[in-house]
């Protein structure tokens, strides 16, 4: 059975974004999720940063201070090998969850 991990969705979004973007800062990740989802999804800062720091503690992402294109100093996050593994596992898990939820919704 898929782990019932709807809360893990944010982690999944962040990990996936980072895998698409390479190194990115928190604001960039939030914008990416909004843009790509056509503003259907919006990530709150109050959830984003705790999640990023938790992933850093768990060794899924690595953080480095660098300068942005608009020459602002920002903390850039990149996926680690462990993070990539985590992403693969979560993607698979997410598919299961979606399948499960859809099955419930379609039940007549």
């Amino acid at each position: 059975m898929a782990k019932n991990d709807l809360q893990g969705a944010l982690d999944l979004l962040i990990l996936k974004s980072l895998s698409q973007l390479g190194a990115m800062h928190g604001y960039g990740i939030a914008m990416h999720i909004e843009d790509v989802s056509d503003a259907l999804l919006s990530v709150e800062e109050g959830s984003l940063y705790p999640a990023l720091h938790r992933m850093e503690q768990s060794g899924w992402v690595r953080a480095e201070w660098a300068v942005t294109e608009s020459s602002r100093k920002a903390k850039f996050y990149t996926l680690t090998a462990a993070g990539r593994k985590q992403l693969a596992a979560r993607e698979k898990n997410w598919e299961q969850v979606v399948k499960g939820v859809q099955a419930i919704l379609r039940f007549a």
Partner: protein
Amino acid sequence: MGVFRRGFRRIWALGRRAKLDREIEDELREHMRMRVDADVAKGMSPDEAIRRARLRFGNPTVVKERVDAEDAALGLESFFRDARYAVRGFVKSPGFTIVAVLTLALGIGANTAVFQLLDAVRLRSLPIQRSQELAELRIVGGNKGLGITDSAFANFTIPMWQEVRRHHDPFSAVLAWRGNDVLVGKMTEAKHAHGLEVSGDFFNVLGVAPWQGRLIEPQDEGSCEVSKAVASYAFWKAQMGGQPITPKKTIAMDGRTVQVLGVTPPEFFGLIVGERFDLAYPTCTPPNPRREMFIFSVMGRLKPGWSIERASGYFTSLSPGIMESTAPDGYSAEAIKTFKSIRLGAYPAGGGVSGLREAYDSSLQLLLAITGLVLLIACANLANLMLARASARQREMAIRMALGASRGRLLRQLLIGSSLLAFSGAAIGVVLAQPLSHLLVSSLSTSEYSIQLSIVTDWRVLLFATGIAVLTCIVFGTFPAMRGTSVDPIRALKAGERGVAGSRERFSLQRLLVVTQIAVSMVLLVGAVLFVRSYRNLMTIDPGFRESGITVGDFGFPMEQIKPENEAAFKRQLVEDVRSVPGVQNAAATTNVLLSGSTWSHGVHVGSAEGPSRFTYVSPSYFATMGISATDWARFCGDGHGGYSVRADCEPGFRAQILRHQGAAGAASAGDAGAAIPGSHVPSSGNGGGYQVQRSARRARADGLRSDRSVAGHRARAWSCDGD
């Protein structure tokens, strides 16, 4: 790798908490600015953009706290927070804390004390260079009572040592030594000191460097008149005032003036664990060394590439040749055959040699098991206390869980609390262990034989104490913590102030603990009662001789410069003189004090029966003096038939043989006692039969092995009355 890096990061983060906080602030502030920048770029006024960003962001402090919590949740920071919290809890209930820590300190202290002794006796290696290379050569299976054996460690006669000195392929170098008591000081006020007779290479092979002056070197070996010696650090400090060693430094040893060459380092105590040498002096090779006297312990340093087993094999295959060329004469063919069948083997000696090991090893292990049980009881006790505490805090736990604390978090907090208790207990325990060990050692020492062990808290002891602390923590901390955190918050809160103290489950655990405690206590109690009984039996047993009111004094003929032909007269006179001292009831002379265990053996022939028997020389007044029931003994002693008689009280099998030949109890026969006539046969004047004492032990005049004593002698399986 990752684990280490993360661990390191956390430790590092500990020291730069403030910097980390600033970083989080920076990160969040930059985020806001980027959003404002973006909105302004879209054409919003800066003020409006800042307002919107703030609205969106919410309370920055709350966000910062949440990020901070993520950083800290897994870090050491929270560990210290938990530890602080636990300490605050303990300070609030000092009674509980003191009882808990003291119980643990006593339990862990007792265990550590016993372990420390085991460590000193058994585990620690000698304070020499590369001690693991040191191997001792020993007779495989012991020397079977052949000849005279000087000490428990003596496996080599001088000729055997000379052979090994010539042929020792597995060893880069060999050394020989023996312990030999010496008298230090002027004759009238001479004191006993532990002497160590060593071969010239002794200190070089061991790699012991001088503390002062120089140590004994090969060129010092030679003259049998001892003229040079080396002092141990302790002796030098205590008896020589610790003054610098100069070439003119001398000391009176065994009535001779001896030059003190140097001092050994403080940690070097010789090779016997549990004893300490005072003076080391070079050995010598007399022109006609005794071939039946085992005096030396021989050790060597293994060459690279040689294992103990291979070396052992080498010496075993070399043994027939060695024994062939060193066999003594004057023994029966059978005894010579036994002698030649001796095989030598190599044994690891990096830990030194010790009689303590054999004598106390199993006792110490038993003691360790007992103290382990005591600690177990202490743990059960503490677990009960912790359980009671946990139930008192159940409401607190319930509230915290209701507020969102995870069970793991609470569990960790409780375990940190109990490990704090365990480790403070262990710390005090390690300190307590020192006096406890010394107490144990002093209770094992007697006035005659004092045990000199260096008891130090080394890494093994610390590791042991830490291990115990962890173990106790698991035993007494885990169950109560599991129980304490397995509360259902709603039920606990509903139950109000009383908590859920009535839970059946908790009571059953407590009952289990109490039952365990009582069961283990019973085992210990019964064990203790048995010990006390055995001890009482030992103390009240009738040894068959007088135990109190006996004074023993030593003297040696060589020291007094008495001519051999006058020794008998001198001894008689001495005994008479002592007897005439007011208050002295009786006096006697012997070579071996009762229960000291030292004797020497001869082969004894009774008709066709033959076997080794142990002998002790005693003067005619001996049995009367020692209060040994006269009926048996006196008949054979000093009864005027030339003074030579032997009482055989041999091993049962041998006695049966003798009795068969004698046809009467109490084999009355004759033997050679005082006179040194090998193989003499003295006809018996008793009730038939006779001994031929195969070979007598010569009086060890020149080597000072035998020092006559004014009283005692027992345990020897055969007595001979000194008829001189």
